[in-house]
C-alpha cells in the first residue's frame, strides 16, 4: 500500500480528501506510483507530468522522507518507508509567485 499526498488543487480535481491510497505492482518508483495514481484518477493525467514526455511539470516537486526526490530518475526505487506505506509520497506545487 502506497500513500500519496496531493496538493489541494489536485485533491479537488480528483474528488479526494486526505491521502490517496494506491496498490502498486512490482518495484515502487516515481513512475510506478504515478502510473497507478493516473490509472485510478485519470483526470490527473497531464497535471503532474507531461502527457507525451512523462517529464515532471516544472512547478511540481516530489518529496518523501524529508528528501526532495524531484530530480531522481523516475525509475529509481523510492525509499522503503514509502514502499511499505509508513511514509507518504508528497506531490507538491512549488512555491512561486510570492
Amino acid at each position: 500500500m502506497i500513500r500519496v499526498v496531493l496538493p489541494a488543487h489536485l485533491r479537488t480535481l480528483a474528488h479526494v480528501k486526505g491521502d490517496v491510497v494506491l496498490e502498486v505492482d512490482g518495484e515502487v518508483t516515481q513512475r510506478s506510483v504515478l502510473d497507478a495514481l493516473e490509472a485510478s484518477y485519470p483526470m490527473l493525467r497531464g497535471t503532474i507530468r507531461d502527457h507525451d514526455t512523462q517529464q515532471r511539470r516544472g512547478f511540481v516537486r516530489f518529496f518523501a522522507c524529508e528528501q526532495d526526490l524531484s530530480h531522481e530518475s523516475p525509475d529509481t526505487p523510492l525509499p522503503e518507508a514509502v514502499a511499505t506505506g509508513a511514509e507518504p509520497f508528497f506531490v507538491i506545487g512549488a512555491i512561486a509567485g510570492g
Partner: protein
Amino acid sequence: MSEVRVLVGTRKGAFVLTSDAKREQWDVSGPHFAGWEIYHFKGSPADPSRLYVSQSTGWFGQLIQRSNDGGKTWEPMGNQFKYDGVPGTHQWYDGTPHPWEFKRVWHLEPSLTDPDTVYAGVEDAALFRSNDGAQTWQELAGLRGHGSGPRWQPGAGGMCLHTIILDPDNPQRIFIAISAAGAFRTDDGGETWRPINRGLKSQYIPDPDAEVGHCVHHIAMHPSRPNTLFMQKHWDVMRSDDSGDSWQEVSGNLPTDFGFAIDVHAHEPETIYVVPIKSDSEHFPPDGKLRVFRSRTGGNEWEPLTKGLPQSDCYVNVLRDAMAVDSLDSCGIYFGTTGGQVYASANAGENWAPIVRDLPAVLSVEVQTLP
C-alpha cells in the same frame, strides 16, 4: 420569461451571473474551479446546457471542463493538445527560431450546430477541434502548415490563437486571429488557410504592410452579415466587407484606437462597441475615464457611453474576450475589467451598472440568452 446567463472567466475561477430579462437583479454563483485561471468559458449555441471551460495554472497545466446541465455539475475532459507531426519553430521575441510548445487554451468556440463539436485556440498558436465533446482533440494543422508559421511571433501576452469565428451561412468557413501573426481564413473546413491581412498597417514590424506579423487583438461579426468583420488591432479599429480579403480603418474620432475588446449589437449589424485603452505601454483608459464607444455607422463616427461608468481615477483594462452581448430586445452589453468589475447595460449601452464589483481580474465574458 427569458433568462440571461453571463459566463465569466477570471484569474482565480469562474463565475456565473444570472438574471431575468429585466437584467436588474442578479444572482452570482462561484467561484467554480477556485484558484485556477479561466481563460474562457462558453456555452454551446446548439445546446445551452452544454458549457465548456478552459482551466489552467502554471503549476498543473491545462484542463478542459464540461457541463451538461448548465453549470450545476462539471466533468474534466481531455486535456491532451498534441501538435500534428513535428511542430517546428516560430520566431521568438528576439527574432530567433523557437520550438512550438503548448502552453494553454485561450478560447473555446463551440459549434453552431453540434454540441459535441468544439474548437480550441491555443498558445503557442494553433487550432484544435474535438468532435466528441472535448474528450479528444485533433489539430487542424493546415493553419500552422500553410507556410508563414515560421515567421509568426508572440505578442506581449504570448503567441496565442485567441479568436475563432464560425460562419453561420457557410460551415466550411472559419476565421481565426493570432497575436502577433494576424487574421486567417479557411474556406474548406480547416484543411487549408490563408492570411487575410491586406489593408492592415503595423508600424512595429519591419514591413508595415506585411502578409503576417500584425497584432490583431480581436474580431467580431454579426451573424446576419458574415462577410463583414470588425477588428480591434493593437492600434487601429478596422472593418472588412469582403470576408477579410481587404480591410479599411474606421477608428474615426476615437480618443485612442488602441484596445482589446470589440463587439456588435445583436440586432443592429452596423452598431459596434469598443473600449479605447490609452496605449500599449499604458493599459488603462485615457484620462482615468472608463468609456465604451459606440458607432451606429459601422465605424468612423463614435460616441462615448459613460452613464454609470467611473469617470475619474479608473485605471482598469478590458481584455479581448471580456465583452459580449445578449440577444434580448433591447440588446444587453456586458464587459469585465481587470479590476474585477462586470458591467452590464440593458439598453444597448445608454446606462451601465456593475453586476459585481470585486471579482478577480476578468479574462473573459460570454452571454447566453435562454428561453
